């Protein structure tokens, strides 16, 4: 172990996580379906999805609180699937923090080190180091109940880091904080993770959290991984309707494909048809998907396609105005930049929608 004089280092060597063919059942309920995932050493990785999608279940599987019927969970080259949780060296920060109320902050942080029967002096040094890392040296003798939510969260983090885990698991770490703290803490988390170069998995249902702190994201739904990629990948190239809808606002129009080869068009139900750019992959049962900012209202730029619609409502959001436009049987959202002095389109007036063909996506469920 490398020890420097000023600060006893918490040494961590980044480990890769490899999950293959994992299935998990609660009784007859199939909770995790064919999970395959590769997480690189030192990566900040998010499990993102709505509640009940299986993301926390997978996290608890990695921590050793759930067991899978088959498959492999390899951490740093070692299959841990049949290892009890207390031998895995996988640090987890619980959503509720799970600080023990009958112990002081320092005792909480020392716990894992005491369980490892380390010499007292080393325990003290590492507790100090861990608390220093999260900026709580002064609160070592407090009880968890005397701390604010943010401080409790840092204690939970320090307690986990103190054992120098192979990987760090964060279960909805920001959900018990208020909105302002959330932004602050997520930056700190990112900073800490970069400094320690610790492979980290972050479970959240909030796309903004995942987007802002994580290198890559796995989007979960109904027990399956829908897509894995960087935040921008997921936003620009969603693999299916679920991902498109879950990350950001997406307009979705029903319709059907007509023709074949280079002459394919997509007939939007009740609103005319638009050409499909040659070479576009259109899965069976696909719907037309586009983001609110990739369309214009009232005019069509050269090379763009158009759809007719009716203004249904409008919301002034400051920098932009969001219009609801009825197109056929659906209503789509279009964001228009707001310019000082510009008027708003009257409700009920017919208008035309311009759509950039390259920003249009055809996605299935």
């Amino acid at each position, binding site marked *: 172990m490398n020890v420097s004089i000023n600060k006893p280092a918490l040494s961590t060597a980044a480990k890769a996580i490899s999950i293959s063919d994992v299935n998990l059942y609660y009784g007859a309920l199939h909770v995790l379906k064919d999970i395959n995932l590769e997480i690189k050493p030192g990566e900040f990785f998010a499990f993102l999805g709505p509640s009940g999608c299986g993301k926390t279940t997978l996290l608890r599987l990695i*921590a*050793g*609180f759930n067991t899978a019927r088959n498959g492999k969970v390899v951490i740093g080259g070692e299959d841990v699937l049949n290892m*009890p*949780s*207390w*031998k*895995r*060296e*996988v*640090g*987890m920060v*619980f*959503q*509720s923090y*799970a*600080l*023990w*109320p*009958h112990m002081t902050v320092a005792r909480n942080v020392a*716990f*894992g080190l005491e*369980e*490892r029967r380390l010499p007292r002096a080393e325990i003290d040094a590492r507790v100090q180091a861990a608390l220093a890392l999260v900026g709580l040296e002064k609160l070592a003798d407090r009880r968890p*109940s005397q701390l604010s939510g943010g401080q409790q969260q840092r204690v*939970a983090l320090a*307690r*986990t880091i103190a*054992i120098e885990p192979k990987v760090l698991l964060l*279960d*909805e770490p920001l*959900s*018990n904080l208020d909105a302002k703290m959330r932004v602050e803490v997520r930056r700190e988390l990112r900073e800490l993770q970069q400094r320690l170069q610790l492979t980290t998995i972050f479970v959240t249902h909030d796309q903004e959290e995942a987007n802002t702190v994580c290198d890559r994201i796995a989007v979960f739904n109904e027990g399956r991984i829908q897509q894995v990629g960087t935040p921008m990948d997921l936003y620009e190239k969603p693999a299916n309707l679920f991902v498109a809808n879950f990350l950001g606002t997406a307009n979705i129009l029903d319709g059907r494909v007509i023709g074949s080869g280079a002459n394919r068009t997509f007939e939007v139900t009740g609103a005319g048809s638009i050409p499909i750019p040659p070479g576009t992959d259109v899965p069976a049962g696909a719907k037309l998907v586009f983001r609110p900012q990739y369309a214009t209202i009232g005019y069509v730029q050269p090379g763009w396609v158009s759809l007719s619609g009716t203004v249904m409502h409008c919301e002034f959001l400051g920098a932009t105005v969001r219009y609801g436009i009825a197109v056929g049987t659906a209503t789509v959202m279009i964001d228009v930049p707001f310019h000082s002095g510009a008027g708003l389109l009257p409700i009920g007036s017919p208008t035309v929608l311009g759509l950039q063909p390259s920003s249009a996506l055809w996605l299935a469920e």
Partner: protein
Amino acid sequence: MAFVASMPTRRFAAKPGQVIAVSVIALFLLVFLIIPAGTVIYTAFTEKGTGALTVVNFIDFFNTDLFRRSFFNSIYVSGMSVVWATVIALPLAVLTTRFDFRGSLIIQTLGFVPLIMPPFVGAVAMQLLFGRNGTVNLILNDWFGIRLPFMEGLNGVIFVQSLHYFPFILINLSTSLRNIDRSMEEAAQNLGSSGIRLFRRIVFPLAMPGYLAGASLVFVKVFDDLATPLLLNVKDMLAPQAYLRVTSVGLTDPMGYVISVILIVVSIFAMWLSAVAMRGKDYSTTQRGGGGLAKRKLSRGESVIAYGVVALILLLVLSPHIGLLLLSFATVWSFSPMPDDFTMAHYARVFGESSIYIKNTLIYASLAGLIDVVIGGAIAYIVLRTKIIGRRWLDWAATAALAIPGVVLGIGYLRTFYGITLPGGTPLATLWVMVVLALAIRRLPYALRACYAALQQVSESLEEAAENLGATKQRTIRRIVLPLMTGGLLAGFVTSFSTAAVELSATLMLIQSNSDAPIAYGLYVFMQSPAGRGPGAALGVIAVVLVAVCTLLSHYVIERRQRAIGMNK
């Protein structure tokens, strides 16, 4: 919103009805709790004859060998009862709450069975099973040539009391254990802890408040219990001494009062100690983002051991009941492992001669339960829903009854009301109504908790909605609050009823004639003579069945009601 928040709250002025209610309750508590208890304390500090204030009685007490021995015996018996009750309750609580254990419900239910029978009733059966010439020792002697002194002297009291009162520890400890969120344990596992170490460092410390609450209750209950030591013929303990002084030496002897004061002080001290130990330790850790309760699976080997231990404990716990049942059907049962023959004669005799006991019990216990629910409900409403000055005092006064042992209350009633005679010449103190009032006062703290719980379930906005639609306070209470509280009030009634039905300490002091006596008293009288044991046991079985049936019935009613109005989650 801001307007609503800044509006003056609606309950500054007390309504006349509320003032009357507060006054009536205050008067009731004053006359039947505070004055009798105060009289006992005052008498203990006055010189016999002159009435001058003095501490000489206490010096006398500690200078008397018998009293000193009684004092230490009482402490020893209570302490050891806590230890043994813990030994019984701990495995049951841990297995049923922390493990995937089949039959948890049965254990939790059977665990409560001891409470629905007065401990002294079991004591006689325990003599026959575990006494020097009881079943177990006869068998042990046959097989190994040894006898174990289960029931000799203080051992007997400890044995009977710990078997009887362990449910208090079981209930409280189980609740605490159930309130520990699984993330507490998982965090420890995640950091490398497991097994016994995990239990010792995390689980047990978190369950400590519940354990202490239960343990202090057991200590106090055993310390105050009168009938069990009396029936086991152990006289050198405090409660029996107080009783014997007052009944044999007389109401003017100061020693009975001195002992009473010591009983009160030790009760309060034990409760205070547990309160101090628990201060700031509300460890209820089920919380947002928590994962609920962790239940572990047992391996095959562990299962065998666990079921074995549980079966053994349950057999032990139910042995007073089994013994009682055998005894109630036995012709002769002496110096033999089992009765010689079986008969229905005891039941016939009990139903023939002693149905008066049953009738009296039903009357006393239901009246006491009724008084408790009415007063408890009223106090709960006044404390939670009004701003009348001094409302907290009602709560404190009613709760203070916890610290007054039955013997002490009995002595207090005798002292306070003996001088007051009715037109017929009978002293007020010996009127059966006094028994009812004593029972009501003794059970009030428990009923009060039930009433609080019931009222807290009723959202205030439901009442505000009624008032908003034009209902007066009284009509809101009648049409909204009471119907919604019914389940909780019934639960309070049952608690009071079933415990009052088997209470003896205060009754023993106040009952003067057989015709006024409830079952507990009848049992005590029967159990005193060997010939009375059969009918006594039959009466005991009837009491157990009576209380069990009432409890089950009310559970059923409460469940159905809760489901009907959708209050079950």
